[in-house]
């Protein structure tokens, strides 16, 4: 396999973007990346998207999006894996370049969640329709069940959950592209309205519009496009049982651990080598479960990691410097690529007030459903 680099990135702000359609969001992010690299052609396009069909009644996004950026004719494929669609679009693009089949591939993600559809219903299509959704569960509800099981097993508290949100909003306040770039106090989080007990509004990622795109090429061609390419050192993907009830331990995200092991092995590094990480904090409890499954923090420290500052900017392993899904926003199909862009910028030293000094190795973990799919990428400054 050839070595692969990211040479350009583009991203819209995340938020309720009423003036922007699904296609406009994609075009803005894609054209920013293409312009940055100064390329006039692409060999392939991958579009991560969870549910154009349910959110805005639009499927067949491959050709639609290629056409929108003047690239009709180029092979273009939509990749779907619920909230992990973006991360898996990147992985697919990575293999296309690594295999030698293509030299210039755009990996993107886009979601338009605010266009009138009932987001709660649409998001629930990523859970098991017959066994879970039938009975009235929601996505916040599934993670609430994980949270309650975690509290029961490990003594995790509502305050621990709330610290994750406080930390990520502190980070997000420094991110001009974040949907909610503002800080909240512990009290505000703990007194916000209940969504699915024990999760409250300020433990949940919001409903967002947005798009993100990165350009991949073989590492040995990267200097044509940028002075500072970032290498994709490892990729790993895994699945788990779809229904939460079918997992042996509802508190443990086994797909996250498995995808991480695969990425670490491919990269030849371990969790202790990581300088900065973006993890899938769709709900406060997910960050706690993910940092543990990724091996970034020991199980005994995971619940208190945000409160103790371990995972805050300036801490031993800063997690979600972008503000995470919580503060930056979570346009589901775009999230995996947006995480990659945060790591890409961190490794290039472009993160301004969010910069982790000297960051050389970064990790991004993107998850679908209640953890039925997970994808991990490890990036390296070279």
């Amino acid at each position, binding site marked *: 396999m050839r070595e692969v680099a990211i040479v350009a990135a583009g991203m819209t702000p995340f938020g309720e973007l009423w003036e922007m359609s699904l296609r406009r969001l994609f075009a803005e992010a894609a054209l920013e990346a293409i312009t940055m690299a100064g390329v006039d052609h692409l060999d392939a396009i991958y579009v991560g998207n969870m549910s154009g069909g349910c959110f805005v009644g639009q499927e067949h996004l491959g050709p639609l999006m290629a056409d929108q950026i003047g690239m009709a004719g180029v092979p273009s494929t939509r990749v779907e894996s619920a909230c992990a669609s973006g991360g898996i679009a990147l992985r697919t693009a990575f293999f296309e370049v690594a295999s030698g089949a293509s030299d210039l591939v755009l990996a993107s993600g886009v979601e338009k969640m605010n266009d009138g559809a009932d987001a709660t219903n649409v998001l629930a299509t990523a859970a098991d329709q017959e066994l879970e959704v039938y009975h009235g569960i929601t996505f916040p*509800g599934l993670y609430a069940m994980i949270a309650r099981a975690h509290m029961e097993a490990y003594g995790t508290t509502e305050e621990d959950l709330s610290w994750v949100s406080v930390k990520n909003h502190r980070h997000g306040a420094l991110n001009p592209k974040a949907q909610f770039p503002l800080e909240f106090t512990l009290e505000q989080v703990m007194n916000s309205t209940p969504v699915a007990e024990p999760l409250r509004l300020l433990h949940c990622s919001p409903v967002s519009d947005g798009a993100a795109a990165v350009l991949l090429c073989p590492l040995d061609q990267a200097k044509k496009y940028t002075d500072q390419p970032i290498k994709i050192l490892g990729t790993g993907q895994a699945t788990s049982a779809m229904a939460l009830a079918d997992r042996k331990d509802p508190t443990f995200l086994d797909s996250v651990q498995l995808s991480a092991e695969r990425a670490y092995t491919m990269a030849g590094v371990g969790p202790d080598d990581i300088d900065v990480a973006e993890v899938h904090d769709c709900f406060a409890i997910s960050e706690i479960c993910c940092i543990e499954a990724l091996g970034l923090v020991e199980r005994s420290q995971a619940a208190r990691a945000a409160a103790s500052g371990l995972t805050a900017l300036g801490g031993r392993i800063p997690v979600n410097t972008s503000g995470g899904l919580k503060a930056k926003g979570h346009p589901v199909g775009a999230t995996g690529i947006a995480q990659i862009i945060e790591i890409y910028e961190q490794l290039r030293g472009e993160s301004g007030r969010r910069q982790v000094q000297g960051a050389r190795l970064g990790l991004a973990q993107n998850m679908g459903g209640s953890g039925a799919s997970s994808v991990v990428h490890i990036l390296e400054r070279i």
Partner: protein
Amino acid sequence: MPSPRYWREVPSRLRLEAARCSGCGKVNYPPRPICPGCRGKESEPVTLSKTATIITSTVIHIAPDDFLFEAPYAIAIVETPEGARFMAQVVECDPSSVGPGMDVSLEFRLIRKEARSGILCYGFKAVPTASWEAQS
């Protein structure tokens, strides 16, 4: 929900029919062609008991459209004595009293109504047992 889709699930959803894997003994609910535990293909039918214990739970405040007027409601993952785990609403109690470890009985109930002219959809809901309530 189109009625063929509903009808297909009748044996498991309305009659609690499951399958015990002949290879590893795992009870799979609903039955599948292959056991997710050991990939065995042989199994014998079992009907689940109508009692269970709550593994974990939540109280839904922001509900999907079809359940809007029921919120807040408790919903849980329950485990039957056969070891089958699945999701069910927990009713006839204060939703905030529901939590892991609680013993429940499973009762045949209306689960949802499909839109204005759709079919009525049934299944099982969990009700805390009298002995559990006496204990607490």
